């Protein structure tokens, strides 16, 4: 019976893995095809079933003058905007979350929970509602078609995620730990940075991961708030599309754009499973 369950378990895991990995393999295979291989029926294995071509990848680095779509600059733009916005969101969000978790605020009927909700409410509206105000505001600031304008907008979008995750996390860190740090001679800032932050690494990683993912995949605001000067990767990938859909270069760019997220996921995965706080309280 045990063997049966074990077999079943591995069968399910294998099927699920195939389900997850198959699109990637398919995209990888397609990225090495050319027009004839794509239209000539279903083929999967290079050399055996079709002659591999590097055309799909070359288009991504070729300059527009020579008929390519240079994604190198948008790629680094995307990395810069996502990382900067995520970092600032995490720093500000963590500080805000700590304050909301540890101190009691009251202004009339507005209390801690209302402030937390205010942050989260930024994400309740459909992005389209925000697009016109953002457009006008960035226009007023002269930050349209500008990386820093995009960073500003992304902070508005990402910080609520950081606050939301970190408030919840800090609420689970026993307050006695901060108090002990104060008793042991830390001022409140030292208590936060020397004791609370090192014990909040799993939470910080989750929050950071969410910020990076949401920042990286955003198409809508990148599309609306930039024109020609700066461009982000998702917008540029869409620009690949022409009268004849270039499946090979679309596949290649899809793989390129998802690669950083996979790398980040592999790096942080082991920190996530650590469960650093167990044993803080019994």
């Amino acid at each position, binding site marked *: 019976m045990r063997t049966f369950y074990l077999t079943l378990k591995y069968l399910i895991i294998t099927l699920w893995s195939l389900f997850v990995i198959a699109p990637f393999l398919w995209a990888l295979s397609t990225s090495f095809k050319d027009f004839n291989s794509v239209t000539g029926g279903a083929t999967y294995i290079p050399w055996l079933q079709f002659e591999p071509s590097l055309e799909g990848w070359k288009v991504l680095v070729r300059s527009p003058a020579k008929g390519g779509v240079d994604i190198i600059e948008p790629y680094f733009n995307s990395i810069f905007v996502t990382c900067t916005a995520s970092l600032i969101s995490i720093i500000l969000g963590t500080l805000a979350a700590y304050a909301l978790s540890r101190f009691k605020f009251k202004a009339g009927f507005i209390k801690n929970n209302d402030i937390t909700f205010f942050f989260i409410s930024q994400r309740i509206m459909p992005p389209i509602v925000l697009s016109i105000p953002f457009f006008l505001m960035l226009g007023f600031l002269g930050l349209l078609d500008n990386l820093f304008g995009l960073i500003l907008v992304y902070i508005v979008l990402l910080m609520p995620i950081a606050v939301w995750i970190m408030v919840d996390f800090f609420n689970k860190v026993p307050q006695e730990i901060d*108090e002990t740090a104060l008793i042991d001679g830390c001022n409140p800032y030292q208590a936060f940075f020397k004791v609370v932050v090192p*014990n909040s690494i799993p939470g910080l990683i989750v929050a950071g991961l969410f910020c990076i993912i949401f920042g990286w995949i955003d198409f809508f605001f990148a599309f609306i708030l930039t024109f020609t000067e700066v461009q982000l990767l998702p917008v540029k990938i869409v620009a690949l599309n022409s009268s004849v859909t270039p499946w090979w270069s679309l596949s290649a760019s899809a793989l390129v754009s998802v690669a950083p997220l996979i790398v980040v996921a592999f790096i942080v995965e082991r920190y996530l499973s650590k469960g650093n706080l167990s044993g*803080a309280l*019994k």
Partner: protein
Amino acid sequence: MKLVTDNLTFKPEKEYFLNKVSLEFEAGKLYTLLGRTLSGKTSLLKTIAGLQPIDTGNIIFEGKDFSTIPVWKRNVAMVYQQFINYPHLNVFDNIAFPLKQRKMKTSDIENEVSVAIHKVGLLGFEKRKIQELSGGQQQRVALARSLVKKAKILLLDEPLVNLDYKLREDLRNEFKNIFTSDLSANSILLYASTDPLEAMQLNGDIIVLDEGEILQSGTAKDVFENPTNIKVSEITNDPAMNILKGSIDSNKIILNENVQFKIPKHVKNIQAGTYHFGIRASDMILDDKGFDFNIDISEISGSETFLHLHQNELNIVLLIEEVKNFNENDKVKINFNLDKLYVFDGKGDLLFSPFKMN
């Protein structure tokens, strides 16, 4: 060196956390704060540490106003009921943390920490992570961290309550030795507890708290022998003292129509009227010539037997110092050791104690 709390009051909402708490603590002494949960023990400790605000009152330490000094400059140490350590640091770094915070020299830190580790019996565990320790060991780390600071005020908030029974007994003795050996003339030790036995064993001064108010303070012996009112007797006795409502009429104590006896010698010049009579569970005996009682519950606890008895409306708990089996609903005859009888007035204040009253 003296720590004085003067009229501390803290009432954040409807209930008092602290209610006019005025106390004086002297260096080199151990004080036990005894009270039930939510009686204000933790509040008082946190107030002294500076972690909790107060509405009115003053804390004066070594002649200086303590309340303007922030927590991190107060040089107090505190051990919590929960096992609070820094989970991201190993045992050594946990204990060294307050010393590093003081920017002590590394070699000095190593010396101090190894002395403390030796004292709490954690030798060989220096590199362990906190999560890899048992509850008792975690609490030892917390204690070592508080000892290593050589703080002038050491606050212990029910440090043993979350441990299992046997470990608690062992650690209590060990802790007591550590305190007494370390408790040189220049530190004040405050120990909060809900357990009257623990308070008696620690044998320091006892401060009985209830709803943020001091009910009584004095030596362990004094508080045990002369509880100033019924509430104190409830808090300082486990099992609780039997409090029986009755009256005095024509030189007789009348608990009900059947249970009546002569007024004992230590109760003098008492007027007729209604009173509360207190007698400890251990101050009654099984006696063939005694009063009839029905057994409600019989429980064996270690080497003792507790009998919950009733006769009409009179309910008492009797402690027998041996293991004996009784059937529920059986009858037993018991007698009172009247020399150990307490008399409280209608409001619950102590009138007569079997022990000499101050």
